[in-house]
């Protein structure tokens, strides 16, 4: 961004500074959401209010030392995300500035004014001809060699016409102009205003699943590509671990991981792990399909707002190339806190718990940018949004959690009691839902997995039944229940320990492919069925409860991610063991 | 005690009497032995308890002594440390006194008018040309306008310089 000189045209003066809120006067040529550079260091800020000749600016860095009279330079454009191949594998701050360009400590102004990292040259292959007429969203060419993905350079929205000045195939700078379409230069790295959703041709009706590799989700609360999920959980419920597992193993093409107001050590871990792990589908490193936006809890608060919007814009950019993208935002509650903080400084009247009245619509607008679409260029792509929520004191009725629940299609609530009992992932089956489950299940049933609806219903039924009986057991002891109900309680335990529990630290079980999930579920159900038969034939339930079920309980650890065979072998072992009873 | 039994009966009872006597003697002996044993046991227990108490008392005594020694050591160290810090403070304050006196003494030197002129110029630079300048008692100048004031007296200048002295001061007490 560079420093600010007093003499640049349109330069105004700071009038008022109250933390991140800055008022400036006589700033020439401004529009809402335009960027300005504040003070001698040119700190970035966004115009959020204009009244008469005074603009209200939301500063994205610490404003200590900013004084009235200091210059304010308009940049003439809104906060935009640089969209290009340099994003993948990189770690950026909330304004998408590469963090590798800054030193050990992020002092204000550290990330401005310098070249964004090193200029990297990329391999570009044009797919159109000089003079060819193109439409918005059409593919001009491909960028190769950026990790395992092939990226596309598209004609910007709103641009149509003949292609001029098309560069030849070969290595070009990330900034380079690759062609001109209707007088608009098309660069390898373009800019797009982050508050504006990128246009699409149409939303798709067809529903395809996103496989997360976490059994409790894929089996019971599945999510479709282009859908929205909220993950509320108190501290200690394993929220971040679950989200990082999804980021590692889900079968999307690109992950945009937004660390919004959370721990620095976690970001460091993420960066280290993703750099070391291999993506099983492509063979490349996981980090090469990931864009990491890191705005930790003690980095400037307002940049959290920016991080949410830049994150989703980056996702839309990859979607427009015809890719499936997942945005993970950890945690949206910290964004809401920033909204509240700024609103209170503007003197806006607070609504519930001090949040601004616009909280609900801000949250809704964010989740609305998800979707499975036909892009302008005619491809299919999707953006799936998974938003973590951190309810204070675990209170699910608090405003952010309550509003978010209204706008998402799936809810994976993390339960403290499950976490306390070291049951991970601590997804509560009673407190979660998936509005995509019906369509996805029907889709599988008609296609690759006709048994799925029955399997899912039985597992859910067992859990519900066991849950219902749990209170009775606590009160009266297991021996007070009739035999078949004791089998239900046992069945619940087998489902929880043998199927739903999944250790993120396990090499064999961190990720469970659909075939392993199906095999495990079938194994547990078959074992439960057999137990029911035994009891019906007169074997006392107490006898059945004493049986060593370790073959079926160990199956998840012994079988690799795709290994349905080992699961089936252990199932057979278990059923044999049951045959020997009494 | 004499019975009124006839002599032949008395003779017949003699063995019974002797037996009873022996039995009674045996009982008595047994009771005495038990009493002796009990007494010995009680005595042993009492001795053992006394030994334990003694050992415990010795241990506690040693521990107390150790605690007393440690406390004395701690007190001594605390006193020494406090003295050292106080000495450093005294050093610091003496330095301040000397510096301030030294600077104030410039009032009476030949070069003072030049110093005063320099301070006046500085006051104008800070407050502008319309500032009202007056001499400070003890040397230096005071300047003010409607809303601001600048104290460029010699004393204050010296104090401000000392405040910014920083790490060099530590050399006063670093060997």
């Amino acid at each position, binding site marked *: 961004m560079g420093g600010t000189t007093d003499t640049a045209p349109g330069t105004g003066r700071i009038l*008022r*500074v*109250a*933390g991140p809120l800055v*008022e400036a006067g006589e700033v020439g040529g401004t529009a809402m959401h335009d960027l300005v550079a504040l003070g001698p260091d040119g700190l970035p800020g966004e115009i959020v209010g204009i009244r008469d000749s005074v603009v209200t600016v939301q500063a994205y860095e*610490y404003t*200590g*030392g*900013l*004084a*009235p*009279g200091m210059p304010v330079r308009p940049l003439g454009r809104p906060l935009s995300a640089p969209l290009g191949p340099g994003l993948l594998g990189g770690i950026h701050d909330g304004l998408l500035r590469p*963090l590798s360009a800054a030193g*050990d*400590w*992020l002092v*204000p102004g550290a990330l401005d004014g310098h070249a964004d990292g090193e200029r990297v040259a990329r391999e570009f292959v044009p797919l159109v001809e000089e003079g060819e007429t193109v439409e918005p969203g059409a593919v001009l060419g491909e960028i190769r060699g950026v990790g395992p993905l092939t990226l596309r350079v598209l004609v910007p929205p709103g641009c149509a016409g003949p292609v001029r000045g098309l560069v030849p195939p070969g290595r070009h700078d990330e900034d380079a102009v690759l062609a001109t379409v209707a007088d608009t230069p098309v660069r390898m790295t373009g800019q797009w205003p982050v508050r504006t959703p990128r246009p699409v041709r149409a939303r798709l009706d067809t529903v395809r699943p996103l496989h997360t590799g976490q059994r409790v989700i894929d089996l019971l609360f599945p999510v479709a590509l282009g859908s929205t999920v909220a993950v509320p959980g*108190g501290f200690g419920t394993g929220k971040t671990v679950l989200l990082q597992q999804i980021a590692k193993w889900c079968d999307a093409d690109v992950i945009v991981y937004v*660390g919004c107001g959370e*721990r*620095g*050590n976690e*970001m460091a*871990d993420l*960066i*280290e792990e993703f750099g070391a792990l291999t993506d099983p589908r492509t063979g490349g490193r996981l980090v090469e399909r990931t864009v990491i936006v890191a705005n*930790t*809890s*003690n*980095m400037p608060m307002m940049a959290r707002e920016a991080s949410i919007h830049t994150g989703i814009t980056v996702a839309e950019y990859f979607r427009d190339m015809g890719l499936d993208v997942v945005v993970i935002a950890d945690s949206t509650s*910290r964004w809401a*806190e920033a909204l509240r*903080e700024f609103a*209170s400084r503007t003197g806006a009247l607070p609504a519930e*718990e001090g949040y601004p009245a616009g909280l609900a619509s801000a949250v809704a607008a964010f989740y609305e940018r998800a979707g499975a679409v036909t892009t302008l260029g005619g491809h299919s792509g999707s953006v799936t949004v998974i938003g973590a929520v951190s309810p*204070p*004191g675990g209170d699910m009725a608090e405003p952010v959690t309550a509003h978010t629940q209204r706008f998402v299609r799936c809810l994976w609530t993390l339960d403290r009691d499950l976490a306390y009992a070291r049951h991970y992932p601590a997804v509560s089956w009673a407190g979660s839902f998936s509005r995509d489950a019906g369509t996805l299940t029907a889709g599988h049933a008609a296609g690759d997995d006709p048994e799925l609806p029955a399997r899912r219903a039985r597992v859910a039924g067992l859990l519900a039944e066991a849950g219902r009986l749990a209170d009775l057991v606590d009160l009266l*002891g297991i021996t007070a229940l009739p035999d078949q109900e004791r089998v239900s309680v046992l069945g619940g335990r087998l489902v929880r320990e043998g199927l739903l529990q999944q250790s993120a630290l396990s090499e064999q079980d961190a990720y469970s492919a659909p075939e392993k999930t199906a095999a495990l579920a079938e194994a547990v159900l078959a074992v439960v069925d057999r137990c029911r038969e035994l009891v019906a034939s007169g074997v006392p339930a107490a006898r059945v409860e004493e049986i060593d079920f370790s073959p079926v309980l160990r199956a998840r650890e012994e079988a690799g991610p795709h290994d349905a065979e080992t699961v089936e072998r252990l199932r057979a072992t278990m059923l044999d063991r049951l045959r020997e009873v009494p | 005690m004499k019975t009124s039994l006839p002599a032949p009966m008395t003779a017949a009872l003699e063995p019974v009497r002797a037996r009873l006597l022996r039995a009674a003697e045996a009982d008595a002996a047994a009771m005495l032995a038990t009493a002796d044993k009990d007494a010995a046991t009680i005595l042993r227990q009492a001795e053992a308890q006394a030994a334990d108490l003694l050992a415990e008392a010795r241990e506690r005594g040693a521990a107390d002594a150790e605690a007393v020694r440690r406390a004395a050591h701690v007190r001594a160290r605390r006193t020494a*440390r*406090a003295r*050292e*810090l*106080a000495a*450093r*403070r005294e050093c*610091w304050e003496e330095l301040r006194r000397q510096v301030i006196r030294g600077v104030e003494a410039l009032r009476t030197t030949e070069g003072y008018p030049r110093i005063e002129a320099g301070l006046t110029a500085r006051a104008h630079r*800070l*407050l502008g040309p319309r500032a009202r300048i007056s001499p400070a008692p003890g040397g230096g100048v005071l300047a003010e306008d*409607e*809303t*601001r*004031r*600048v*104290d*460029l007296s010699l004393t204050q200048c010296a104090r*401000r310089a000392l405040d910014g002295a*920083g*790490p060099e*001061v*530590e050399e006063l007490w670093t060997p």
Partner: protein
Amino acid sequence: MNAVVEYTSVRELRGPLAVVDRVEGVGWDEFVRFTPESGGERHGLVLEVDRGTAVVQVLEDTAGLDPARLRAAFTGTPLRVPVGPGWLGRICNGRGEPLDGGPPVFGTTTSAVSGDPVNPVRREPPAEPVLTGISAIDALTTVVRGQKLPVFSAAGLPHLELAAQIAAQSTAGGQPFCVVFAAMGVTHADAAFVRDALEERSASGELVLLLNTADDPVIERVLTPRIALTVAERLAFFEGRHVLVVMADMTSYAEALREVSAARGEIPARRAYPGYLYSDLASLYERCGRVRGLPGSVTVLPVLTMPAGDITHPVPDLTGYITEGQVVLSRTLHARGVYPPVDALSSLSRMMRKGAGPGRTREDHLDVAAQLLAALARARQVRELADLVGQSALTATDRAYLDFDDAFGRELVDQRRDEARTLEETLERAWRVLLTLPRGQLSMLPARFLDARLPQDGR
């Protein structure tokens, strides 16, 4: 220099706020010096500058001040404090002024107390332990260098003693180590206790002590942890030491923040705490860690009391979201006379895997910890069952768990307030406790460890 110019245009005083008119070039968050005509310097921070008016928060409050007889000097920068090894061995108040009779602390340079965030890509993940000498912690919730691990306590529990003991005893594997202890809102008696408990450490030049007592100005309390962390950062990342920062207690700190926020007229959020409490706490706690390429580390140990033991109260709740685990103290254990009353099952160190185990502490450490926790969980269930059906209805195995539970409290957790145990001793005690259970119950321990300690035919 700006601080030479003093403004006499103080227009208004209300509560802790001073409004100064007709100022020029005054920046937000600048540090301000107030000189009343009657003497007695006060200090402030610029809360807002609007055209020519500056609203300043006076740290010592404005009681007794007359705006007509008051001068305000704006220093031109946000508050900076001297930093450097000169702090070691010193005892100061919550604003860094000496309490030990010595001269002011002179540093090698100054740093802003607000600190700057560490660049996430420059962070080194925490990897080696800080051994506290407290068995319950070293065995089960090992503290790792660069971690932030709080103690969750409640009124009446010995958290201050525990914090002082940890501060007095902790080491970092023989590497240069020191402690910065920031006491906030403590009584004079507690302050004296902490001074005594940490005297030896201070005398060895390994302690910086900042004491803010309950009768010191409330706003000052807001600065104390920031000064502590700024001093710690310098000692760690420029002087190459491993620094443990203990902050006790954060509930007092949050209350000060709430009072200050109310005085500023800010809109309260949950339980009347300011809406930015999370970010404010994060701005403190996140100043821990290791930096790639720099020696040294900052480990943060906040201590807080949960009002009425309520973990959903904003202070423990938000702390839990930010920190990496927690050490929870239990009233029940305290009532049973156990010190330190650490509730092992509710406690957790999320970084333990990084700082304990093979190559770090001892080969068997993690397995022993896992087995202890599993056995404790089972013992708890057995106790509940015993409450229901009576002890006589328990199996022999169940009873063994009750014995184990007692042995755990007695042999491992309970220790004297002046007792520092080596890790070896802690782990050996842990083994003694575990071996009160039959071998068949110790399924989480690898066979080779068991074989080394038990005859082959088991027990």
